[in-house]
């Protein structure tokens, strides 16, 4: 069995070191190695956005990043969005606007939406839909998600 690689990262503000095989995606490392299962696996080929995380301030699909590429990077997952027991305004808005049904896409949508509002605090509906185009939801029809993001924008 070839050697695993030692990877040093900062995940949700804390130093996290882990061992992984070079072929393992960051998604696999987060879920199976580190135990952060909030990030979901959908398509595993970059289309659905369920595994969206922020890496060095930029959202990416964790299925299309190798764990070894995370060396020295700062990563934020859904587990790092709330402040303790206090939900982030985007999380609160998703709840209040019923912007989820089965919930599998929700962590990815929230990480993407938080990144959008950090970049564009008052986005138009078009900007929201365009930014979130890499996140698929098969339940809601998207309208409630768009409304939740608009609602969160007014509260941040």
């Amino acid at each position, binding site marked *: 069995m*070839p050697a695993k690689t030692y990877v040093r990262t900062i995940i949700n503000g804390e130093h996290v070191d882990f061992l992984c095989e070079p072929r393992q995606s960051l998604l696999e490392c987060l879920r199976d190695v580190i135990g952060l299962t909030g990030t979901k696996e959908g398509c595993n080929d970059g289309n659905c956005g369920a595994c969206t995380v922020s*890496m060095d301030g930029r959202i990416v699909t964790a299925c*299309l990043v*190798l764990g*070894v590429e995370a060396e020295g990077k700062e990563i934020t997952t859904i587990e790092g969005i709330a402040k303790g027991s206090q939900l982030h305004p985007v999380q609160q808005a998703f709840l209040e606007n019923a912007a989820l049904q089965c919930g599998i896409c929700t962590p990815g949508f929230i990480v993407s939406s938080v990144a959008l509002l950090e970049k564009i605090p008052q986005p138009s509906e078009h900007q929201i839909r365009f930014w979130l185009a*890499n996140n698929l939801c098969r339940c809601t029809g998207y309208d409630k998600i768009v409304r939740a993001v608009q609602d969160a924008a007014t509260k941040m």
Partner: protein
Amino acid sequence: MHWIDYASPHSVREAVDLLNEAGGSARPMAGGTDVLVQLRANALPDVNLLVDMKNIPELNEMTMDPEVGLTLGAAVPCYKIYGNKAIEHAFPGLIDCASLIGGTQIQGRASLGGNLCNAAPSGDSIPVMIALGGVARISGPSGDREVPLEDFCTGVRRTVIQQGEILVSLHFPAPVANQGANYMRFIPRNEMDIAVAGVGCSVVLDNGNIKSARVALSSVAPTPLYVKEIGDAIAGKPANEETLKLAGQMAKDAAKPITDMRGTIEYRKHLCDVLTRRSLQIAIDRAKES
């Protein structure tokens, strides 16, 4: 995914040596948005080493010189391109493609160099890069060479890159006065889809006439298709509807599409006509504003 090793060289020389020593079993990786999908789909069974290009300074270069033009490292991700004011101002055609490849997350990783090397017939960045007169700068075991982008793709997912070579950067000549460019594709959705047909073009105007033009098509041939005849035919003609009609008809005639799940031959040829007229009109409008 089968076992692969990972290397992250810090110089062009080191990368070339790694790829050369590995024979055909190594692949360069920039954003990984194509190669990781292909590995996972078992489409690259012989590859057992990924050579990460992102830690090599030359592949991250983004230098805009008013005289020399733009040097764009092959691994620069899309979001850095559309976040660059100098590129936005001088090369709006590059912004068109960088901001529509994949979605926000893909644009955080994917590069125009990678899009080119992946050499899909539908590669969204390639037509406008050809239209802008782009040149690929390649390094390999026997030295450096330059290849005009219209000659880079040689077949479906095949390029001029030889064993041990890497694409280091793309070079685009500085835009001249009254130049404009555009990329436009047709997809059934509004975003996140593969072009049914696409057109990249660049025009230079002279007193309301087209001084020169370059047009290239995507998704309508085994490779992105540079249609030199269009530029030859419309140079010197007024930038009006009649000239655009001629260009559209020539694009329709030049396209060699197949019928597949995304569209029929007839539909794609029709799209080439419409998209060429519309894309040229945007390029002309941009040239007037420049």
